[in-house]
């Protein structure tokens, strides 16, 4: 099987601190995997490296077999990698539909002359935006200011905007953080739905969410992968237990 994502010896050093330590990671097409680990394990940095916002000190990254280590972030998005943010990064002062339009029009009109001349209320962009808003159940709130939405809906908008770029690989960073139990369930259902067409990686702290969703769990600690396997294997892994029980994780 051709892995959709592969890293070889991926390392990221900030002076004396090694945030990501020679990580060899592999994700197969269509998999729904999770990465867990205590705070400071290197999960967010790992994501940043894959997306291109952070340059690695060493190592290579492959997407669908292609070496993307030196490819710029916006190009990686065009190739099909999308990420949602841990701290919600939406355009708070713009309306929900505008947020989605900025995300959706990237693929549609960015290179055409009309991009500079027409109104963004171009039907194709709006159509695509409303379609995605429908999938994430935010269509009714499309005129509201994004900053005024409750946390759970903001998170869904966040995921929706990542979806609007038509990714084949979706990296989710704590998608249920700060959500109520009901909102968390909605997110779980949404991710399950999405995993039918996309390869997804979820960084999560809530173990019940991870257990419900992931086919495969990778455990990181101090920049390295200390365990990788099915949920059952991880649950009974001694090293993982000691890291979590003896450590500072919330």
């Amino acid at each position, binding site marked *: 099987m051709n892995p959709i994502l592969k890293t070889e010896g991926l390392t990221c050093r900030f002076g004396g601190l090694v945030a990501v330590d020679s990580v060899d990671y592999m994700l197969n097409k269509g998999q729904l995997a999770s990465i867990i680990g205590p705070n400071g394990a290197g999960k967010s940095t790992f994501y940043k490296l894959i*997306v291109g*916002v952070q340059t690695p000190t060493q190592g290579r990254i492959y997407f669908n077999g292609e070496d993307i280590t030196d490819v*710029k*972030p*916006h190009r990686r*998005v*065009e190739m099909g990698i*999308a*990420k949602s*943010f841990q701290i919600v*990064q*939406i*355009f*708070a*002062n*713009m309306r929900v539909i*505008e947020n989605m*339009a*900025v*995300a959706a*029009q*990237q*693929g549609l*009109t*960015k290179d055409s002359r*009309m*991009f*500079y*001349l*027409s*109104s*963004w209320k*171009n039907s194709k*962009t709006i159509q695509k935006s409303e379609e995605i808003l429908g999938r994430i159940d935010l269509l009714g709130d499309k005129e509201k200011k994004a900053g005024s939405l409750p946390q759970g809906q903001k998170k869904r908008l966040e995921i929706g*905007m*990542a979806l*609007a*770029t038509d990714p084949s690989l979706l990296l989710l960073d704590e998608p249920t953080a700060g959500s109520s139990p009901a909102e968390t369930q909605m997110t779980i259902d949404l991710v399950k739905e999405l995993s039918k067409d996309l390869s997804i990686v979820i960084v999560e702290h809530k173990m019940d969410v991870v257990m419900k969703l992931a086919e495969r769990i990778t455990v990181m600690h101090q920049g390295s992968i200390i365990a990788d396997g099915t949920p059952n294997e991880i649950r009974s892994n001694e090293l993982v237990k000691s890291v979590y029980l003896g450590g500072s994780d919330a």
Partner: protein
Amino acid sequence: MAQREKLRNIFGWINQHPMYTLAAILIIMPWVMPSFTVSTDMLIFGLFAMGFNILLGQTGMLSFGHSVFFGLGAYGTAMFLMKPQAVPRVPASWGMLGILTGLALATAAALGIGALSIRRKGTYFSLITVAFNMMVYFIFIQNPLDLTGGGDGIIGIPTPPLFFLEKWRTPETWYYFCMVITLAAVAILRIIQTSPFGEVLKGIRENEERVMLLGYDVARYKLISFTLSGLFSGLAGSLLAFHLNFVGYDTLYWMVSGEVLIVCLLGGFRTFFGPLVGAVAYILLKDGLSAITENWMIFMGVVVMAIILAFRGSGILEMAEKLIYRGRG
């Protein structure tokens, strides 16, 4: 209250037809202002401020060195008309093309300065813009190749014929000429602002990393925004050269960069027409105060500060909108 309802309706209509409203206001404006010349000052500085606000209000980048484009626009025009060694001589009737040369010089500079400045963000970006501003200022004072007139500036800039009209310029006709150009420029700015491109700029203002991770080449968008900003500032500068019949090095001074920022803050940099409102208010204040006292700058500073504090950071136009829509939610 019935009054506020009526105001809201008027404001609503204005929001639907902003350009017609602006045209109407600009046509009538000089008749209620101290003079046509002062009104032209307002147009020119207002256009400069509108150009500046593409960068500040829309893209969220604060330049402290924008007078360089205003000044280069003016010098570009002046050099075209008065310095035969710089540019091939054209027949006198083509003189108004000077507007284009000023614009071109400012735009070229914006491309170059922009490419280097946007490599840094926030405070560092602002500092780099000041550095370039003062660099050009000092170069121009040296009068290199006798092109800039150094400390004396370039004087005696004529007003070339307009098409077939030889002596067409009076304060009145000159105002309306500038008004037509300003309206055209603002119309283009409006199209840019409401286009998908404009939405992306707003996104960059709100959340740069997010926009990048949506697949946009943010550096390229910032550069385009910077260049457009320089272009319109340069256009205003070109008009200034004709307006004053003179260009001096003080147009390039950093204080002018500060003035355009104050104008935007005063009028409301978060709104599209705010900078224009700010320019009118600023020049009116300047005109009024300088007639009363030699120390008008002190009073100017006090008044501007008072307004900004009283309105809690909103500009005049923003405050007006808040008051009219208060209680609407």
